[in-house]
């Protein structure tokens, strides 16, 4: 691998990426942790996820009623909380995309497409967890805490790596992810 003259070393660039990533993560966290933002954005967004999940469950023949962020059926009920709305993975993905050296147009495209893809996978997660809660309740806890949370985050990281491998300008190859 050849570095361009004047370009920072991979190690330095990597450290700079992690620094930007950490700062953005803290800023995003503070943003969504503020009560007005939580009440005006996060809770309505979570309720929308509950409504879409309820509609999908009903379409799949699994009766479910939605009230606010709750999804209920005669056999099982679940409340979609902050950890279940996919926003943690979106924060991680957004902080990584915005920290990565790439043209702004590509970053914005990555943010929009990544947000949509992560929330789509999160919908699959919510619907499948509800189904597990109804039909295999013994598996719900492990599926909820460990399996699906990790899979959604892993999906977000793979999505970022895939985007980063395409988004980096050709002249700046030093920090291109090459898994």
């Amino acid at each position, binding site marked *: 691998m050849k570095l361009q003259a004047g370009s920072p070393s991979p190690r330095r660039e*990597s*450290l700079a990426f992690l620094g930007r990533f950490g700062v953005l993560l803290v800023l*995003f966290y503070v943003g969504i942790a503020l009560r007005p933002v939580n009440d005006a954005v996060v809770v309505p967004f979570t309720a929308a996820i509950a409504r879409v999940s309820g509609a999908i469950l009903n379409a799949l023949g699994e009766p479910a009623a939605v009230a606010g962020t709750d999804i209920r059926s005669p056999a099982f009920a679940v409340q979609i909380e902050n*950890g279940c709305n996919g926003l943690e993975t979106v924060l991680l993905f957004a902080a990584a995309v915005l920290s990565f050296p790439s043209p702004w147009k590509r970053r914005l495209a990555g943010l929009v497409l990544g947000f949509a893809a992560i929330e789509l996978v999160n919908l699959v997660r919510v619907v499948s967890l509800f189904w597990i809660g109804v039909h295999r309740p013994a598996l719900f806890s492990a599926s909820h805490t*460990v399996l699906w949370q*990790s899979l959604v985050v892993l999906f977000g990281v793979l999505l970022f790596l895939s985007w980063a*491998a*395409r988004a980096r300008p050709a002249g700046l190859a030093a920090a291109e992810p090459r898994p």
Partner: protein
Amino acid sequence: MTHRRGLGRAAVLRALAGFALALAFWFGFRAPYERLLASAAEAVLRATEQPAVTRLGVGDGEILVERADLPPGSPRPGLPAADLHFNLVLLAALFALDPHPLDGRRVGALLLGCLVLFAMHIAALVFQVRSVYAASLGPWSAEHYGAAARNFWTGGFHFYEVAGRFAAPFAIWWWLRREDEGRVGGSRSRNRR
């Protein structure tokens, strides 16, 4: 040097296989890991409190908080343990992304990453216990913790819950693989000379 555009299918398959293996390993070893974690966090808590009264136990997937000065018969807080440390699975899956995950150097990097994550788990558990002390014990909390301390401990743990526990494995993996790539690149350059 040729650059493949995008993430290879083989890398994704390796990550999923690593995820499955790590998950099985995690289920098998979570109980002893939780005992180790509770002991380490207890040592930190007792070293930083006056008098040293905290005892941490493990039971049924929870870290049980015991204080010698709590009234007998009062409920003891139980903290969900898996939430703290299941990100070990994510770390292993990320290391499996690399082209030669079983190479000695990569395994060494993974072990180092696990060690760093273990230190983060200790810190997270200390923050969690302190946030319980600061905010969940009613009048006792109000008497012993001011507003700034309450915000520090509860905010610190909430940050770990929302962002830190997912970001930590990614940041550790990113840093350690960069370190390793730098070393590999350096040795190859010397060989060519």
